[in-house]
């Protein structure tokens, strides 16, 4: 087996969580890489939906934006954006919503809006996009995010997307119909909500990973499951598929566009 980077391991672990036939609402970046890797390896019939309205898309390279032309060309169909959010997401037809964020707290709530106070932010982030309603309505959400004490924080600066809110069943008492963040994939291991409190708990480590390293990267006192799973390292096929996808993507995105006039 070849050497691999923590980013590669994280993307591969995320892709493994997806199953063949699963209907997946895909965020851009790491989620998109993981979803397409799944499609190109163990889940050829996964249904990928991007919020641009492309349903069942099968791009050959990763899109840079959520609305690159190849997403439309390879889609089963392209619908207006309001329909994606009403007929497909709000209707509860999405199995997995795959999200990133700038900050996450111990109950899986996400911030992608601001660092610092909203009215006078230290860093203005891009904002909500589709995330609040993906977080509310997908049957479950997966979050993929590198672990640092600045991203895994005790208290969000702003709650953009609901996870389990204050935990202990608070989410279940809202009108959100989806199941919430069932899986958080980081570069130091995998976290899942505890059944009672919904607090995110370390449940699996990568090869060579340690609980100490995980604790150092998480900004709250991290709970650890009793039986920690060991995540298998990437297979040669997984690594080769991911690297080929990334190479094709880099080549495509650096190509200058020539206007036809």
């Amino acid at each position, binding site marked *: 087996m070849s050497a691999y980077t923590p980013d590669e391991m994280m993307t591969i672990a995320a892709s493994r969580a997806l199953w063949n036939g699963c209907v997946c609402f895909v965020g*851009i970046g790491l989620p998109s890489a993981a979803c397409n890797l799944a499609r190109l390896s163990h889940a050829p019939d996964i249904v990928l939906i991007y919020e641009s309205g492309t349903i069942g898309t099968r791009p050959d390279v990763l899109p840079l934006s959520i609305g690159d032309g190849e997403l439309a060309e390879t889609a089963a169909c392209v619908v207006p954006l309001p329909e994606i959010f009403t007929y497909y997401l709000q209707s509860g037809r999405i199995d997995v919503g795959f999200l990133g964020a700038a900050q996450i707290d111990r109950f899986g709530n996400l911030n992608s809006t601001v660092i610092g106070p909203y009215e006078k932010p230290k860093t203005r982030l891009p*904002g909500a996009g589709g995330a*609040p309603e993906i977080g509310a309505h997908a049957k479950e959400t997966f979050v993929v995010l590198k672990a640092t004490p600045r991203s895994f924080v005790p208290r969000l600066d702003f*709650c953009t997307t609901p996870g389990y809110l204050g935990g202990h069943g608070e989410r279940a008492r809202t009108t959100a119909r989806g199941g919430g963040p069932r899986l958080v994939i980081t570069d130091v291991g995998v976290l899942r909500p505890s059944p009672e409190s919904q607090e995110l708990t370390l449940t699996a480590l990568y090869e060579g990973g340690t609980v100490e390293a995980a604790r150092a990267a998480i900004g709250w006192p991290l709970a650890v499951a009793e039986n920690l799973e060991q995540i298998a390292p990437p297979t040669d096929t997984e690594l080769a598929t991911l690297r080929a996808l990334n190479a094709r993507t880099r080549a495509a995105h650096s190509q200058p566009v020539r206007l036809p006039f």
Partner: protein
Amino acid sequence: MSKLLSLKEAIAQHVQDGQMLALEGFTHLIPFAAGHELIRQGRRELHLVRMTPDLVYDQLIGMGCARALTFSWGGNPGVGSLYRLRDAVEKGWPRPLELHEHSHAGMAAAYTAGASRMPFGLLRGYIGTDLPGVNPDIRSVTCPYTGEALATVPALNPDVTILHAQRADRQGNVSLTGIVGAQREAALAARKLIVTVEEVVDALPPAMNAVVLPHWVVTAVAHVPGGAYPSYAHGHYARDNAFYQRWDDIARERDTFRAWMEKHVLATADHAAFLASLVEKAA
């Protein structure tokens, strides 16, 4: 009376300072040429509306054209920040920017309500988020059947919506193909609708269920080949992803941004000259 105008005429006749403007296009068909023409004509105090501000609003905001922004995701897609948007919000440069912030689902509901001339849109949304705390426009109604509270957003009815599309016929019927985002809703929600197009043809092919804006909802059409660049027009040219990545460097600092805008937008007479100025640069 033909609806066919030059882009310069269309903006001069139909867009005024202080108006609410929506330049829509979700990644695809973003009306960049129209954005540049607004900058050239020095429009001010605009209330800009777009789901994804993208580079086109980064430019308008950085050039001081905007008083307020209604939006739901303000990044450079797949690249990172919109530095001019951030500078306006974080530092008030070149002037402060009032934010009306939504989620995509909320914006989609607001445009749909606007196109339907309903006073508000309805969604099961904003549950558990801090957005209603910073946007007092996000409210709720009680379902008269279940008693459940549902989120509401006020309808968006821009004074002018500007779109880019692949083609129009001489009557002003406009046809769009590919990712259509919330363009149709934004178009039908507006009081006036300006569309720039890649091609003007004698007659559109039979449309059947394709996306068409009939001529009688269109205020003006301008023939602007390449009018979506560096965004794209499906069937005509691809998105210039490399340019979106370069924008990160251009827009990060105020002076490099101003220099680029002066050279490529303010110093060029129209979109053809803008596109030519980019080729020169590469040479």
